[in-house]
């Protein structure tokens, strides 16, 4: 994509490939993947189930090593996870032996924040995701959507400058999702974070992103386009906005094409 | 790792193999306060089970004196040419052969040769390989012109009476060669009877032999001469006491020593003690030579030392 790494590029991926070894054959999860993400952008990623979205995020986060190609963060190659990057993984990774409160505190503990400030900050975040009263519950005592929200709070506690989110709101009801989307947008607007947001919901992709990337099999980029719908975007109004409807159609078509 | 004694002056640690009858004089000297009177304190008194462990403890400096059988002393002398004898505790071979109550081959009153031949092809329980109990069987079989390794099956039962008697009672072995008072215990429990007893003079040529001994190394004798001498004096007094005191007193002391033993087994013991424990701690050349001869015949110890080498001059008695 961009030939020179400008100061604005946060993540640059080129020729990325990832194979998993199974029974002496290689399963290709991602092939020749290129992507450049600019500082402060909100990129939503759509794609079929199994097309390599989570694999891509794992690579961006430095959790796994690519089979080929490189990932660089602010110009430097990514060799392992970095504190500046927060990653909300698709599957639940709350510590089952820690209460909600303790789970949200964890990144702060690791960063060495004093106990008093930790407690306050965690309480605030728990409130933001609507879980006050459940501080002392263990993850197994929560509903699926509640666990997801705790994970979100935990990620935010690390105060990352780049957010990778893998279907964060899929398990939440419409209203709560709306509230948290708004919260996320507020955060983003205020703090200038960079967000890469994987979702299955085309509407959500359009509602949040200022750029949407649609992936086909093994991470082939089927569509990569900016979304210039005016902000703030309201779901109810958007639904009847002709531009939105056109975009929706376009993405649906791209997804369908990606399936082939 | 050649460490010398770790005990403070005036104290001796005495390791013994077990609480068998042979070490009764030690107990008596302690009970009667002879050690204190002679000016030595006994520190640790570990029971070590085997001669190898006594030797290890001696070498590590954990104990100053070891109480065991002649075999252990000779073995020590073999690996350490400074091994020395300190006291003669028992001058008889205090291992008995016991057979089950229903043993068919021969009766205890038959001639020795017939009794030995009756053991042919039998399973005989011993305490362990290389022990004095195995040696006795080897010796007896050799006397009758047989070979214990091929003409019998020797089974190691360890050195606790309970296991040995269990095996005999359960019919797992036909006979036991074991330390005294196995015969008395077997009789008291109705499990078996004494069959061959060298200590009772059953075996010609093995009537008197130094068997229960205290030993150490020349290094300790040099380092703690006063303490060792005091120890020897106290033991001598204890051995004289055993011969002179009245039977009731001996029984009382034995009862304390062998806690938990069947009282029926106790009554025969005072007489036995008096016949086996010498009145002095010295080693006569004849007893010593019998022991050496016995070890040579049975092949228990390679490279046997001489009388002059391991019996210190003060302990060389000339009694026949």
């Amino acid at each position, binding site marked *: 994509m961009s030939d020179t790494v400008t100061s604005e590029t946060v993540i640059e991926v080129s020729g990325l490939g990832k194979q998993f070894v199974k029974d002496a054959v290689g399963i290709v999860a991602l092939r020749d993947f290129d992507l450049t993400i600019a500082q402060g952008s909100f990129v939503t990623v759509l794609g079929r189930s199994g097309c390599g979205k989570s694999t891509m995020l794992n690579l961006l*986060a430095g959790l796994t090593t690519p089979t080929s190609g490189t990932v660089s963060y602010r110009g430097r190659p990514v060799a392992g996870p970095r504190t500046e990057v927060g990653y909300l993984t698709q599957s639940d*990774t709350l510590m089952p032996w820690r209460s909600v409160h303790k789970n949200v505190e964890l990144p702060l503990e*690791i960063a060495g924040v004093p106990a008093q400030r930790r407690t306050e900050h965690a309480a605030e975040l728990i409130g933001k995701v609507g879980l006050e009263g459940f501080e002392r519950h263990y993850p197994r005592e929560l509903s699926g959507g509640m666990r997801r929200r705790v994970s979100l709070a935990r990620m935010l506690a*690390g105060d990352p400058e780049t957010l990778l989110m893998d279907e964060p709101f899929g398990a939440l009801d419409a209203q709560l999702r709306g509230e948290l989307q708004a919260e996320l947008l507020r955060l983003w607007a205020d703090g200038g974070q960079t967000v890469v947001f994987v979702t299955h919901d085309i509407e959500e992709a359009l509602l949040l992103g200022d750029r949407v990337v649609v992936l086909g099999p093994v991470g082939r980029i089927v569509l990569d386009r900016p979304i210039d719908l005016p902000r703030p975007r309201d779901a109810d109004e958007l639904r009847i906005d002709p531009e939105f409807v056109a975009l929706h159609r376009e993405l649906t078509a791209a997804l369908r094409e990606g399936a082939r | 790792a050649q460490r010398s004694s770790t005990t403070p002056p005036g104290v001796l640690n005495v390791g013994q193999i077990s*609480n068998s009858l042979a070490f009764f004089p030690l107990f008596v000297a302690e009970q009667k306060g002879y050690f204190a009177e002679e000016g030595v304190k006994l520190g640790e008194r570990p029971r070590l*089970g085997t001669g190898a462990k006594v030797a290890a*403890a001696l070498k590590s400096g*954990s104990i100053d004196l070891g109480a065991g059988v002649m075999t252990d002393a000779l073995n020590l002398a073999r690996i350490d040419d400074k091994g020395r004898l300190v006291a003669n505790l028992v001058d008889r071979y205090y291992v008995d052969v016991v057979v089950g109550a229903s043993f068919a081959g021969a009766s205890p009153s038959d001639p020795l040769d017939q009794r030995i031949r009756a053991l042919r092809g039998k399973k005989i329980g011993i305490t362990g390989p290389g022990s004095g109990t195995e040696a006795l069987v080897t010796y007896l079989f050799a006397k009758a012109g047989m070979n214990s390794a091929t003409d019998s099956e020797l089974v190691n039962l360890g050195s606790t009476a309970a296991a040995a008697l269990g095996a005999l009672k359960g019919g797992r072995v036909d006979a036991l060669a074991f330390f005294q008072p196995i015969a008395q215990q077997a009789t008291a429990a109705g499990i078996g009877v004494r069959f061959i007893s060298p200590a009772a003079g059953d075996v010609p040529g093995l009537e008197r032999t130094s068997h229960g001994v205290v030993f150490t190394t020349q290094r300790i004798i040099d380092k703690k001469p006063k303490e060792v001498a005091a120890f020897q004096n106290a033991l001598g007094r204890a051995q004289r006491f055993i011969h002179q005191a009245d039977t009731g007193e001996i029984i009382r002391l034995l009862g304390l020593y062998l806690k938990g033993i069947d009282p029926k087994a106790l009554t025969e013991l005072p007489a036995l003690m008096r016949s086996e424990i010498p009145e002095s701690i010295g080693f006569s050349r004849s007893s010593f030579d019998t022991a050496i001869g016995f070890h040579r015949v049975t092949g228990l110890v390679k490279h046997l030392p001489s009388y002059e080498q391991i019996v210190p001059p003060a302990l060389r008695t000339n009694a026949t």
Partner: protein
Amino acid sequence: MTAIQTVRLDRSWWGRHGGTATVWSLRALLVVALLVVWELTAERWFDITFTSKPSDIWTRLVQWHQDGTLWSNTWITVQEVVYGFLLGAAAGALTGFVLASARAFYQVLDPFIMALYAIPKVALAPLFIVWFGIGMSMKVLLAAATVFFLVFLNVAAGVREVDRGLIDAVRLMGGGRRDILVKVVVPSSMTGLLTGLKVAIPYALIGAVIGELVASNRGLGYLINDAAAQFDTAGVFATLVVLSVIAALLNLVVGLLDRRASRWKPLGEER
């Protein structure tokens, strides 16, 4: 938002402690039943000279209690066991956490550890005596050596099972090796550690007792040996009873630890 709705539970004493009470009364019942059956059938079914019977054992315990033999010897063994257990468990847990996290290294060392572990300690008794003497430290080390391997191997197995996702979560938060160990590996392999501890308790006892059999004039091992040498079966069993009680108490302690560490786990009340 989702306000939490709670109700006060008004549970009776029975509601709260009924389960525990039932378990303990069943246990007591079982003990009594076993003792009665043993006492009644001792002479008929078993050979009493080798199995003794509860009343004789009790007599011996009372006797030992009166002349002080019981307590002085028990105290010594308890000390050895506790020190040996703590030492072995601490060393085993530490080594387990560290080695199992360094996988390749562990893989190379594994056969050596197993070979060391497989050596019957009794066979090394002379070496132990030469190196560590015949005092308490030798018995403590013998107990610790046995405990070490059991705890180590169980912890190592637990560490291997740690969920990769949780480790990754800590790495994403910028946690280093130490954080991973403390925040994930240790809590997550608690079951392994606790199983190791539970499995090792008896071996702390057995180790100490073996040490006392090797070289001692005190302690429960000495008592057993002495009683066996005098063919005093009641004495042997009396000592075994004391050993079992010590084991049961230590087991209770580990059980409490387990309960504390497992508070977050589902109760599994329903089946």
